[in-house]
């Protein structure tokens, strides 16, 4: 059930904070809005390979082929704390951990029993499991929790909007609040963006008239036009954020001029290995966010995490390749955001985790609990949070998978309250189904 005391406490904190001029000291930051970036890994990333319980004998035993080694050993994980280590492919993020703005919550997930990707993703995008007719009726089929979150921000600030970076609008952002949907997977230089805006402005729009009496079509069409105009106008103005020289290789893979990129593009065009395109998307997200303070909620999704086969280990396999691309992209995002990083939180999540035991084919099957990643200026990083249930038989979910001890919504609700100042009533609207309040997350948010 809702923990009213928890919410009252967080509200009290907010009021006090405002009264004391919490956000006053740095003028630039005071005018910058709070930002939430959600990155969804579709296909169930193997959380036990992200934040690795290397010290756990059960882990080593369950994964003779694909287990990762302890820190200090060849190809070992990067040390996080005494119990956990970070996948070596995520090394680009390690400085953020050391500087204290990267944290993880272990054993997170949805309490539902589903091991279906499609069902679990849908639930996690709706923000509830439509188990009762009442919930279905109240919310319809297609309104995501991130859209409801956006609704409240939009009410406070009319220029505020959400951006879904990708080729279509995912369920999580479907709903009444304004959303720009734009594919950022290819780098658009400022001059090209300016030319596109100018050419759009020249054309008379017969299509808007054609859809005049069809509200759904008209809304989609206008949204596309306006969103495109907004994104392109910002990109036309946006100076390329400074990048360390070492980061340029991360982008070269999406440069259409290189031969390797042509092949990769062909793959990506067919929907494959989308994680490879993430560095480009992340780079452009940063350009847009620094330019347009109205972009407060941002979303993108990456695929190819369903590693039933050939999951690999520290150096080989699909998982390390995808994690590497994700890490390089996150690094670009953080660098590109510059000062805006202080008011931004990045959440990386996935529909469920994977089996503790390696399967018969060098991979893992659909499991339950997972790890959630949190990056941002407000995050008290350098800690693995959450109530670790262990990997012993008695701790496992259905005696096979990592259990869920923290509801994913509890972490998100904490951000909604602490970072965005959303109140109890707003939170109940965003997540209408009762869920277990979080344990052990009190220190996660600074301030």
């Amino acid at each position, binding site marked *: 059930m809702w923990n009213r005391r928890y919410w009252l406490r967080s509200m009290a904190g907010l009021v006090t904070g405002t009264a004391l001029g919490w956000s006053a000291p740095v003028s630039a930051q005071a005018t910058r809005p709070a930002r939430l970036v959600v990155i969804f890994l*579709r*296909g169930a990333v193997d959380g036990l390979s992200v934040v690795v319980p290397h010290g756990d004998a059960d882990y080593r035993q369950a994964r*003779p082929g694909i287990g990762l080694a302890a820190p200090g050993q060849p190809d070992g994980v990067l040390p996080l704390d005494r119990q956990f280590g970070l996948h070596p492919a995520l090394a680009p993020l390690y400085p953020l951990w050391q500087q204290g703005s990267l944290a993880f919550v272990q054993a997170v997930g949805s309490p539902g029993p*589903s*091991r*279906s*990707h*499609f*069902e679990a993703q849908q639930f996690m995008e709706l923000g509830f499991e439509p188990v009762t007719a009442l919930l279905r009726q109240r919310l319809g*089929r*297609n309104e995501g929790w991130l859209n409801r979150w956006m609704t409240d921000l939009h009410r406070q600030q009319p220029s505020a909007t959400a951006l879904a970076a990708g*080729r*279509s*609008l995912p369920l999580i952002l*479907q709903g009444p609040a304004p959303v*720009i*949907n*734009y*594919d950022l997977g290819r780098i658009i230089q400022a001059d090209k963006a300016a030319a596109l805006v100018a050419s759009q402005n020249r054309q008379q729009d*017969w*299509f808007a*008239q*054609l*859809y*005049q*009496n*069809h509200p*759904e*079509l008209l809304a*989609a*069409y206008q*949204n*596309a*036009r306006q*969103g*495109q105009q907004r994104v392109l106008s910002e990109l036309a103005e946006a100076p390329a954020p400074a990048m360390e020289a070492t980061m340029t290789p991360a982008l070269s893979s999406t440069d*259409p001029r290189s031969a390797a990129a*042509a092949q990769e593009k*062909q*793959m990506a*065009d*067919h*929907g*494959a290995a989308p994680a490879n395109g993430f560095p480009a998307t992340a780079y452009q997200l940063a350009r847009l966010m620094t330019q347009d303070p109205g972009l407060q909620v941002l979303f993108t999704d990456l*695929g*190819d995490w*369903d590693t*039933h*086969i050939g999951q690999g280990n520290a150096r080989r396999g699909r998982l390390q390749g995808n994690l590497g691309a994700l890490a390089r992209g996150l690094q670009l995002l953080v660098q590109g955001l510059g000062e805006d990083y202080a008011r931004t939180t990045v959440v990386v999540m996935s529909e469920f985790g994977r089996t503790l035991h390696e*399967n*018969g*084919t060098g*991979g893992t*099957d*659909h499991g339950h609990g997972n790890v959630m990643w949190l990056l941002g200026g407000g995050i008290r990083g350098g800690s693995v949070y959450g109530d670790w249930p262990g990997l012993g038989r008695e701790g496992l979910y*259905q005696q096979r998978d990592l259990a869920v001890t923290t509801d994913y919504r509890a972490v998100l609700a904490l951000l909604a309250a602490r970072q965005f100042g959303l109140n109890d009533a707003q939170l109940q609207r965003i997540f209408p189904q009762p869920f277990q309040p979080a344990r052990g997350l009190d220190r996660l948010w600074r301030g």
Partner: protein
Amino acid sequence: MTIRTTTRRALVLVLGLLGSVPGWAVDLPAAAQQWSVPQQQWLVLNRLGYGPSPDSVARIQQLGVSAYIDQQLQPQQLPEARQTRQLLATQPWLDWPAARIMARLYQTGQAAGEGISDPQARQLAVRTATNQQSRQLFMLAQKLRLTEAISSPRQLEARLTEFWFNHFNVFGPLGSIQATLGQYERQVIRPRVLGRFEDLLLATARSPIMLTYLNNEKSSRAYVDARGTAHGLNENYAREVMELHTLGVQGGYTQQDVTALAHVLTGWRQDGLGKYQDTRPDGFLFSAALHDPAPQVVLGQRFDQPGEAQGEAALRMLARHPATAQHLSQQLAEFFLADDPPPALVRRMSQRWLATQGDLREVMTVLISSPEFWQQRGQKFKTPYRYLVSTVRASGIQPSNPAALLAPLNAMGMPLYGRLTPDGYPQDKSAWLNPVGLQTRVNFAQTLARGRYIWHAAELQGATPQPEDQPDPATVSRLIDPLLSPQTLQRIQQAPAAQQMALRLAAPEWLYD
């Protein structure tokens, strides 16, 4: 459904269009009579195919609505499109059995490596040649699919092939899958779309592509091989076959059922290289050595048959299960009629399914002869694929390069054979009516109207539009205007002449069925 003999068929026979093969006949319900004959024709062309084209309009006008429908339900009596035969004449691979394709692919690789002494260079040459051949076959499959949908007189078969491929979805652009994808669609799916569902299910279960995609080929009883590597169960296929292919996620199965079915299906493998004697021409191999022979209980039913028969019995049980009949009748009605189809219709289809042990032609006949089928249009927002194919058809052109049509599909979020996950693409409006998708449709309509759709495809830079790619305004108007409201027509006629064709090709009543 009742069988009519009599005058109409006699007339058709006289016209010599059906030949002497005994026909299938569907009675139109009274609800069909609310429409004028041309309205009936356009409704049928839209619902049972990818909309009007110059050829299909001529055909339905000549045959009449009933006889046209009867023909569509017996596609083997209709020829394939001329363009299809042209494509296959130069590239016959897709009509070969899977094992032969894989063997040829292997030989192609070996031939490329011949005479290269450095093992690494040799391996690279082999891999490059194999990949290149696989990619070519994948491109051929894509062209073939689009060509069939655009030009084939077997329109219902084309739509059903889209439906059932999507139902038994595999992700195309992946290694060796690319090479047999066209074979899978043409030989495994298409010949069975109006047959018995369990035959279709079993054919997909034994296809090398499905065995690879959902990993069943690697699933085995637990054992340790000579090198000390442990092998065992992979439950991916067993879960998806119940969740997606048959019962549905609400179908009442448990984790125990999934695991039990995975055991049942151990030893169902593919042998692409023809390494084993027992490999069948379709590339399927049952390995008794890797099969777990223990009896299993699935959905409360005990399966203790020997070897492969155990899996076959379990899959047949799933195919005939009431939850499967309900789940698939619902999906068919959603695909052909409305996102939220009338429950009474779904119930009748499902009853027919159970009464005929999943005879898909019978189930389709219930759908087509139902009053609900003949209700008003506008209930279904076209998916990007359906929009694209129907729009090219209505433009009246035979695209000089169908590969150029792949790019707009990508941009609309529906790359051909590009759905990564086994659930297939969603078919409802909420998945596709979005800003990016609509903008891309408008862009596509504009370039198609100018005869320059090829420009969508960056990878075809240098390709020039051909004269035959330029649609004729009168044709577009003749094919699309019967579907437009007076208001829409008026708005189009107010626009400059140069804009009118694009406006027709993205008109509200054209975006919906």
